[in-house]
């Protein structure tokens, strides 16, 4: 537990609980339109493609591709060990379905934009599991 950084946690609501707490069951979940199958993130009350309100959380496979990243050296948040890797990843389930996250178990010199990644969950307080990403080939 001691190797975990201090994190500012999200405010969990009924609308986002599937995302922040799904890791407890090993699943990365996004909202999905049950009418036209569009994935929706961040959560919304309405499908942006077909305006259906019949939306439900579904798991994605947890694989992703690295879109971009930064190695942060600045202590914006006290207690967050430096440096750390921030990344935007995109999921194969839908073009443009992305997350801002952290890259872990990854040497900065081995990073290549486009590299395959997979989700790992970091357990935080309050039933929250943060979806982080590591190289798919470790």
């Amino acid at each position, binding site marked *: 537990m001691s190797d975990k950084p201090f*994190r500012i*946690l*999200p*405010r969990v609501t009924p609308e986002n609980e599937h995302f922040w707490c799904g890791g407890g069951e090993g699943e990365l979940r996004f909202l999905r339109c049950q009418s036209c199958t569009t994935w929706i993130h961040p959560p919304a009350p309405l499908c942006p493609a077909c305006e259906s309100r019949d939306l439900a959380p579904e798991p994605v496979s947890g694989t992703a591709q690295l*879109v971009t990243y930064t190695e*942060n050296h600045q202590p*914006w948040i006290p207690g967050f060990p430096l440096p750390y890797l921030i990344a*935007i990843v995109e999921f194969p389930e839908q073009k443009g379905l992305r997350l*801002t996250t952290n890259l872990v178990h990854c040497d900065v010199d081995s990073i290549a*934009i486009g590299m395959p990644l997979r989700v790992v969950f970091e357990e935080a307080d309050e039933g929250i599991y943060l979806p982080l990403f590591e190289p798919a080939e470790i």
Partner: protein
Amino acid sequence: MGSEILERRAAISGIGQSEYGRRMERDPLALTADACLAAIEDAGLRRQDIDGLSTYPGAGIQGAPGFTGAGVSEVQEMLRLDLDWFCGGPELPGQLGAVINACAAVATGLARHVLCFRTVWESTAQGKGRRAGIGTGGGGSFRASGIMEWTLPFGAASAACWIAMMAQRHFHEYGTTREQLAQIALNARRNAGLNPKAIYRDPMSLEDYFAARMITTPFCLFDCDVPVDGSTAFIVSSLEAARDLRRPPVRVEAVGSALHGRPSWDQFDDLTTMAARDAAKMMWSRTDLRPADVDVAQLYDGFSFITLSWLEALGFCGVGEGGPFIEGGQRIALEGEIPVNTHGGQLSAGRLHGFGFLHEACVQLWGEGGERQVPGDPQVAIAAAGGGPLGGCLLVTRS
């Protein structure tokens, strides 16, 4: 173009700026008073003539400490203004969205003379420590929500991190290098050396740039702007009213306020450009002028990469060609084909947050740049502000 371009009924009739600097420990409302009264006087108006008021981001928003120094109500109360129209808020096409709003107000007759202001006191508010992240001061019980819900839990607590990832993606797609990007910072520093009000005026070399500590790759310290305390103000008047005033009006030729992609730092379709692309395209669709007609460009540099992004978006070079375009720095220098950030930008002159660029555009069009005046009697200028999903721009002319 079939219909009238209504923003051409608007003009900038006066500008004002407080003293600005690092940790001034001055009341931000007092700085605001200095800028506002200077702008009113500059236009040859009196307080009683002001019937509109506009600002970004206004009071009551959560940002980094010192992000907002005065809101609409405080300024109306302080100056005892009788207002027919007013507006203040953060949900605008960039900081200059407050000025674009004012143009719309005078063009539609809701006001004749709108006082626009933007005050920051980030340097004093953030003290002597390192630069603050957004929303990180709430203590152990604080929980991230809104757009910060998706970034803060991962330590992405600053636009520095978000824009750095845009830059990294640009590097990846187009082969842009840190050596090229450095020219934005070096150009700003050269120009700041000629601006007596600029914060950092000592010469900077490429070696100095590469020796600076890393903030968030690919950004080093010199890719990030310098927080200051200060206030900038404009009077946006109806062109008809401006013609009778002290100065030759700076006319508004066209504005760009579009955002067609998703309003998100990580879900936007093309992470190498964002709002600048849409705002610039809209602006050019509203004028017969072309990039080659522009004599001077003041392009937001909260982070160096944003200037490069605006250069591409505005068509000074092709998409993805910003790196080679700024390489060596000659094209964007004072004597170059398109002088950029002639006051030193936010990187070296100081982070007056968007409004400094339009201020400098007017200074150059009025020929009052002193040592940093662009040669050749500039007639056409661009002021563009904002990065990521925030962006707005104005094309302004002297004649």
